[in-house]
Each structure stands twice: as structure tokens, then as C-alpha cells.
């Protein structure tokens, strides 16, 4: 028999191509940006333009290619559905925002032109990450994103901190992806496939009568890989160093895009594998593991954040705490078997991305020249110096602290609701305690901005229009989301 009969080629239909447009556009734009980068004088502008154009087109095509029926390509190698669209949008937006934020900053800090290309690559990796149902493709997307981000982190070549951060991120991240990959093989071995749905169904079938250890091990290791990416205790160690070592726009990109898409991938995997009845719910072990991880993540993030003076480090710890809140939603989704919790997770992620992008845009504007390390002291007297900037920053911080009427409040509220509906009163109260503690360090910048006066020679904040634009947009979004949250929370419907 002939080769074609043995291995019939599975073609991609036209509407599947249409669904793929965003990914393709991002890929092309990243290549273009890479090619444009070395261009002598215009390299920077050109590659930024390529990134921007690609992102815009991709966004538009996303909104065009909205199809209610999910498109599955080659049996789930790539899946385009609501989830993937929402998270691709988040990824593209955060990439675009990061690009715009680094206008001006990159010259001051001598960042290479390739930054924009790398951002584009990372974004395309994120898109793959959130829109696949195949574990190895997921791994490919993860690596595509991670490699780009490793380089972006280590890019500031004058700074020791950047190099060190890049090293730490790379080594630990490599180990983590290896762990995840080992879990993938174990799942492959115990179910004979790499597709979420098949794994889920066959494991579910297997779980009916008894519980072999291998799939459990596989699930656990995949879960650990994800937890590392979202930065949950005890897989969090890299976060503070990497976030404070990387240059501010890059940190903004990581804290928003990288983390959000990791959450998205975890969400897909959870809702299709973890959350299957009988898997995680089979024994008490998973419940208590998750419970402890959430508890430690919440408390660690808020307690250690108390002692930070560097704003980037502070927000790094705060993002650890935020991971704890998100995991509350996953708790409800997996253990509590509440599918609606995914809405809470999605909207929280969206709100979280917006406020963090805004916050880091502000930090970009106030980051001192010599060390790209904005501290509380740099904020002193900002309220008099630049009232609108100060107002925006306090808006973002209050939103992170979860005070109405800001986006963060509703994100938190949705998660609390889902956790309560799963009957997790204890964890919710713990989350309340954590947010009270973290309120302290969210308020400290306000103290410096409004209640301390600045000494003149310390003032070194910039006025780049890019970051300012991001700040303004994020501020408006934060308020709008805080007043009309249901517009955004119903994105998944």
C-alpha cells in the first residue's frame, strides 16, 4: 500500500485558516520585526512598527474571527474558542503595551532593537500556549514564550541584576518545563494520547474502578509545572528576583502577559482534565495540597511584601498574593466542581492585567536612570509634582488592594463568590486576612506620594508619551471595569 494510504494527510480547511490568522499575523510580524531590527537608523522604529501593526491586525482579526463554534485543527493541535480568543487578546494587548511602554526607555537603557521582535515572538508563543489542546504543542508554546522572555530579561547588558535575573529565570524555568514535560510523558504513557480531551476521558474511565499511581504522578507534575509559571508557593522563588532584575517594561510584560497566559493554559487544562469528576476529587490529598498551596501563597506574598522598599519587588510579592486569589477560583473549579468559577478567573485575570500594566507604566516613568529600580523614595511628593500620574498610580494600587469602585475589587469579589459557592469559607477568610495585610503595602506608596514632600535632587521621572498613554488608558479601563464589570465578566459567554 502506498504512503498516502498509510498516512493520509489531514488538511486545514479555509475557516480553520481564518481562525489561525491572529497567530500567523503575529508570527509574520515577529519575523519582520526581527529582520527590521538591524536596520541602521530606523531599526528601532521599524521593528516597533512591525510589532504594533502585527498586534493591531491580530486584534482585529481576532474580533473578526469570533466564531461561537470552537474551531479545532488536526484534532486539537490548535483550538480556537472563546477561551483562546480572550487570552490571545490579553497576550497581544500586553505585548503591545509593553512595546509602547519601552519607547524612550529602551534608548535610555540601551536595550537592543530586537526587543520588539522578541516581544512579538513571545506573544505568538502565548497564543499557541492558550489555544492548544495538545500537551507537547503546549510545551512548544511555553518554550517559545519563555525563550523570548529569558532573553528579554537578560537584555540590559550593563546591569548585573539583569544578567543574574536572566540566569535564575532560565535555570529554574528550564527545570520547571522539564518537570512539566515529564508529567506530559507520564500522562501520555498512562492514557496513550497527548490530547486533553482523550487524556481526560480515558483517565476518567480508568478512575471508575481504581486509582493507579502513574496518572496521578503525571497530573501532579504537570500541575507543578503550571504552578511554577503562575508563581505559587513553594514554586515562587524566582519571581521577586526576576521581576526586580528585569527592566521595567519587560517586568510589566511578564507580570501581565506571561502570567495571564499561563493562567489561561492552566484554566483550559483544568477544565478539561483536572476538573473531571473523580480525578482530583477522588482523594483528600489533592484538596489539602491545593489548600495549603493557596494558604501559603496568600500569606507569603502579603507578609514578605510588607518589608519591600523597591516598588518592583513589592509588586512582585503582590503578584504572588494575587496568584493565591486566582488559585481560589481554581479551587472552586476543580474541587468544588463549579464551572462558572472559570468566568471569575477570566475576569479577574483581565482586571489584574490591566491594573498591573498601568502600574508598571507608571514605574517606567519614575524609574531612575542609573539603576532601573524605582523605590518608595522616588515617589515622595509625586502628588504635588505630577498629580495625574500620582492619581493613576493610587488608582492602580487601590485596585490591587481591592477597593471599590475599581476593577480589582470586582475581580476579588468574583473569586470570593466562587470560593464561597464551593463552600471554602476558611480559605476565603484567609484571603481576607491576606488582603488586609497587603493593604498596608499597597497604601505605603500613597503615603509617600501625598503625605511626604520630595527632595529636589531625587526627582528623576520621565515624560515618555508611550508610557503615559498606557497609564491613561489603563486608568480609564480600571475605572470603567470597576463601574461596569459585567461587560467584561461576560466575555466568556
Amino acid at each position, binding site marked *: 500500500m502506498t504512503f498516502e494510504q498509510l498516512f493520509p494527510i489531514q488538511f486545514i480547511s479555509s475557516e480553520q485558516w481564518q481562525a489561525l490568522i491572529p497567530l500567523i499575523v503575529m508570527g509574520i510580524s515577529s519575523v519582520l520585526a526581527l529582520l527590521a531590527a538591524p536596520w541602521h537608523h530606523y531599526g528601532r522604529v521599524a521593528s516597533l512598527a512591525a510589532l504594533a501593526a502585527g498586534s493591531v491586525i491580530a486584534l482585529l482579526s481576532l474580533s473578526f474571527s469570533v466564531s461561537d463554534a470552537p474551531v479545532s485543527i488536526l484534532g486539537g493541535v490548535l483550538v480556537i474558542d472563546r477561551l483562546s480568543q480572550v487570552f490571545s487578546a490579553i497576550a497581544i494587548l500586553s505585548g503591545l503595551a509593553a512595546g509602547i511602554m519601552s519607547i524612550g526607555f529602551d534608548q535610555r537603557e540601551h536595550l537592543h532593537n530586537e526587543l520588539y521582535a522578541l516581544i512579538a515572538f513571545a506573544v505568538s508563543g502565548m497564543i499557541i500556549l492558550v489555544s492548544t489542546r495538545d500537551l507537547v504543542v503546549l510545551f512548544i508554546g511555553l518554550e517559545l514564550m519563555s525563550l523570548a522572555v529569558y532573553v528579554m530579561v537578560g537584555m540590559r547588558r550593563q546591569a548585573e541584576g539583569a544578567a543574574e535575573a536572566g540566569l535564575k529565570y532560565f535555570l529554574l524555568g528550564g527545570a520547571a518545563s522539564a518537570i512539566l514535560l515529564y508529567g506530559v510523558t507520564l500522562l501520555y504513557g498512562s492514557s496513550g494520547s497527548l490530547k486533553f480531551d482523550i487524556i481526560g476521558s480515558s483517565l476518567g474511565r480508568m478512575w471508575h474502578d481504581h486509582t493507579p499511581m502513574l496518572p496521578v504522578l503525571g497530573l501532579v507534575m504537570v500541575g507543578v509545572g503550571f504552578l511554577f509559571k503562575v508563581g505559587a508557593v513553594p514554586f515562587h522563588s524566582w519571581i521577586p528576583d526576576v521581576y526586580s532584575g528585569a527592566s521595567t517594561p519587560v517586568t510589566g510584560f511578564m507580570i501581565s502577559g506571561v502570567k495571564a497566559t499561563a493562567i489561561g493554559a492552566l484554566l483550559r487544562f483544568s477544565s478539561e482534565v483536572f476538573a473531571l469528576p473523580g480525578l482530583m476529587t477522588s482523594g483528600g490529598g489533592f484538596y489539602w495540597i491545593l489548600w495549603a498551596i493557596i494558604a501559603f501563597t496568600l500569606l507569603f506574598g502579603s507578609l514578605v511584601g510588607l518589608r519591600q522598599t523597591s516598588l518592583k519587588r513589592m509588586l512582585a510579592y503582590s503578584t504572588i498574593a494575587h496568584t493565591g486569589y486566582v488559585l481560589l477560583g481554581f479551587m472552586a473549579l476543580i474541587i468544588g466542581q463549579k464551572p462558572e468559577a472559570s468566568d471569575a478567573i477570566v475576569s479577574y485575570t483581565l482586571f489584574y492585567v490591566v491594573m498591573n500594566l498601568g502600574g508598571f507604566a507608571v514605574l517606567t516613568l519614575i524609574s531612575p536612570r542609573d539603576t532601573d529600580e524605582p523605590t518608595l523614595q522616588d515617589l515622595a511628593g509625586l502628588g504635588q509634582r505630577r498629580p495625574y500620574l500620582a492619581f493613576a498610580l493610587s488608582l492602580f494600587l487601590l485596585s490591587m488592594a481591592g477597593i471599590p469602585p475599581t476593577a480589582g475589587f470586582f475581580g476579588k469579589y468574583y473569586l470570593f463568590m466562587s470560593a464561597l459557592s464551593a463552600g471554602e469559607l476558611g480559605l476565603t*477568610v484567609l484571603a481576607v486576612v491576606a488582603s*488586609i495585610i497587603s493593604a498596608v503595602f499597597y497604601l505605603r506608596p500613597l503615603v509617600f506620594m501625598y*503625605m511626604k514632600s520630595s527632595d529636589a535632587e531625587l526627582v528623576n521621572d520621565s515624560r515618555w508619551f508611550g508610557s503615559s498613554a498606557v497609564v491613561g488608558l489603563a486608568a480609564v479601563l480600571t475605572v470603567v471595569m470597576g463601574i461596569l464589570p459585567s461587560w467584561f465578566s461576560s466575555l466568556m459567554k
Partner: protein
Amino acid sequence: MNQLLSWMIFLPALAALAILSLPQQKSAWARPIGVVVSALVAVFALLLWQSFDPAVQGAQFLIKQPWLPEFGIHFELALDGLNIPLVLFTALLTPLAFLGTWSLQAEGSVQKRMTALILLMETGALGTFLSQDIFLFYVFWEIILIPAYLLIGMYGGADRLKTTLQFFLYTFAGSLLMLVAIGWMIWVQKASTGTASASIADLQNIQLNFDSSAGLWGLMSVQGLVFVGFAAAFFVKSPLVPLHAWLPSTYTQAPTLVTIYLAAVLSKMGTYGILKILLPLFPDAARAFAPTLMWLAAFGIVYGAVLAIVQKNLKTAIAYSSLSHVSYILLGLFSLSPSGMSGALLQMVNHGIAIAGLFLVVGWLEKKSDSLDLSSFGGLAKSTPLLATSLMVMVLSSVALPGTNGFVGEFMVLVASFRVHAGPTILAATGMVLGAVYMLNVYQKTMFGAAGAEGLKVSWSDLGAKEILVMVALSAAVVGIGVAPQSYLELSKKSIEATVKHISPEGPKPEQPVQVSNF
């Protein structure tokens, strides 16, 4: 007419934004704008009062727009018997407070920010009082927190940073627990009825299970836990001893205008929450814990009074006196009887008026003299007769002299709570004596006797036109309510009776039989 409610809420907020965006050199406009806007709101409130029908029990001028449909949360505002006194009071007090403190802040930027933030606080307060949706209530409740935090932190006294953080954390902790409880209520409501609704009226109909056999006298049962969640927020804000630790330093450190707003309005948000939400939503728990809470309130009366007596600092003394008086309100509320609750509701307004007047006077003294040490004043009555007179009126109101508003509320509270539970009432009644002790002490140390150090140092000028206007208005309220309270009580009579009936359908169980008789 209906839209007036939303205007009352959003007009101050818009004005606040406008003021904040004033250019620096124009910041002198801030205060006039503030006064005009708040006066406009006051006019709205009076209009509503005119067309409010006391005979109708339940919500009037209802506004209901869907907000978060998936949780059944609506933008739902209305006037009813319970909130109209407080809405009126808040709306009328704000312009008076602006006028009264007109002479206290000089610098333009300070005026600008303070006015704007106070207007934001008015938005929050009015929203809290008006909202009929529990979630909306929470949102407005929280909105008020940040302006207060900033104001104290920016313009407070020497110890302002620590103070403002403490204030924020106490209240924030309470509110977050309330948020959890709210979430739980909404979820339970959805689970039990199928259709989600966050409207307080609907939530009143669901009965959470409460059995006192559960741990901690029943706190561990469902209703007990949710009760605790709400109680945490309300008791901290009111405050109920021993959750008051934030109060003395906050009232002392905050600038006068803010102190007035905190003491007169914010603490009422807590007591109003107890009246509107805590007791009606959790009747079993309320009935179970009322005696204990009455004891706590009575203790708080004495506690605050005793501490006020020994204070050296004028402002701190008045802060503790406020603690003592708020405890009267709580005592009346926990008596769960119509006259007790109306007395408490009236007492909320009374205390607001008196404390506002007192802190205004303190503010004027503070402006002239650098120390607020009681011993450094004296003999001011000679140089400032009007100031002395107005202070006297406020003092009389807060020692509950018959004929002043303070007596009405306090006496109704005492009678009602005595009927329910004699022990705490007797303890509380000693507050009459102790209250007289510290109030007269303050009056004497400042106004009477030979002129003290501060009294001699500066040349005291008596009240100006604005201050006189404010004080006359407040004093008129003091005497007017004191002499003819019924027209005021009439407003909330129906709603209060409905609330009481909801809490204990078989009526309050007095120790002795009651025969009501008009003559």
C-alpha cells in the same frame, strides 16, 4: 423627582472631580464650589422631605437599574423611614461644615483637596444611606474610606501617618469580613430561591438556620457566622467597645472638618447598618445576642465617659465623649423595641449635631492656640460670649438636658431598654451623671475661671458671620428637636415598627406588661 436621589449622590462626586482638576491658581474657587454644591444637595434633600409620605411604610422614590445581573445586583436607591433622617442630616450638615471650617484652612491647594475629598465622602455617605441593595451599600461604604485615609494622612496632626493607617486597617478589616458575608448571603439567596437578588428587602425573607446549640453560643451556625461578618464592619465603624481603638487617635489627629465628618456622619453609617441590615437580616441571632450587646453598649457608655473625664487634651476628651454617646445609640438599637430604635435613630442625628458643634468649637480654639491642653485655656467666655453660648448649647445637648434634642433620644432609649433589660439600663443611666461631669469640666476649663495661658497669649476674636450662621442653625436644631420631636419621629415611625415586627414577630418581650395610653 426620582432622579433627585441619584443627583444627590453623583453631584458631589462630579463636583469633586471638577475641583480636583482646577488649575493651581484657581484653587480659591474650590470652597465656594463645595459650599454651593452641597447646599444644592441639601435643597434636594429638603424637597424630598417635603414630598415624603410618612404614612407609607417602605421605599419611596425608588430607583432600580440592573447592575450585575449575574448576581442579581441592582443600582437600587430609595428613601424610607429609616434613612430619611440621616439623609436629611448629612445633606444639611455638609454645607454647614464647609461654612463653619471656612476660616480654618488657609492654603489654596489644601482647600482644593479637602473640599473635593469631603464631597467624595458625602457621596459615599449619602449612597450608603440611600442604597437598598446590599452590594451597592457595600460599594458606597468602601468608597468613603480612601478620602478619609488621605485627608487624615495629608492634613492630620503630628502622629497622622500611624493614626490614619490604624483607622484604615480597622475599618477595612471589618468591611472585608462584611464583603465575605454579603457574598455568602447572595449565594444562599440564589441557592434557596433560584433567582439571584441582592436587594435588602429580598434578603430579609431568607431565613438562615440559627441554632444556639452550635459552638460559641450559636455563632458557629450559619446565621451566626454571617451575623459576625456584618457585625464586624458595623461595630468597628460605630464603634462598639472594645472595637474602638482607632477612634480617639483618629478624631484627635484629623483636621477639624474631617473629624466632624467622621464623628457626625461616618459613625452613623455603622449604626445605620445595624438598624437597616444587621438586625432585620438576622433576627434570630439579633434576639439571641441582644442582651449581651446591650451590656456591652452600657459598658461602653461608662467606659467612654470615664476616659473622657480624665483626658487632658480637649479634642481627645470630646472624642471619648463621642464614644460614650454612640453607645447610647447602640443600646437603643439592641433593645429591639420601637421606641428604643426610634430613640436610637433620633439619637444618631442628635449626636451628629452636638458632636459637629463641639468639634467646630474645638477647631476654632485649635486655630488660635497651639496647644489643646485643657489646662491652658480659661476665661474665654468674657472675650468670646457668642462662642461660649454656642458651646453651652452643644454641651447641654450632649448632657441630655430636657428641652434639648439629646434628652429625647436618650430618654426614649433608656425607657425602652429598661423595659427589655433593666440591668444594662441602670448602668447606662449612670452615664447621665458622668457625662455631665466631663462636659461641664470641658466647658469650665475653657470658658470659665481666670484666663489661662492660651487665653492670655492670643487676642481672641468672637465668631464671624459664617460661624454664627452655622451655630444658630445647629442650636435651632438642638432646641427644635428637643421641644417638638414628634414631627421628626413621625417620619420613621412606620418603618421602625415594621422592622421590629420583622425582628420579633411576637413583639418585644418586656419584663412587665405594657399598657400604652395617650392622654
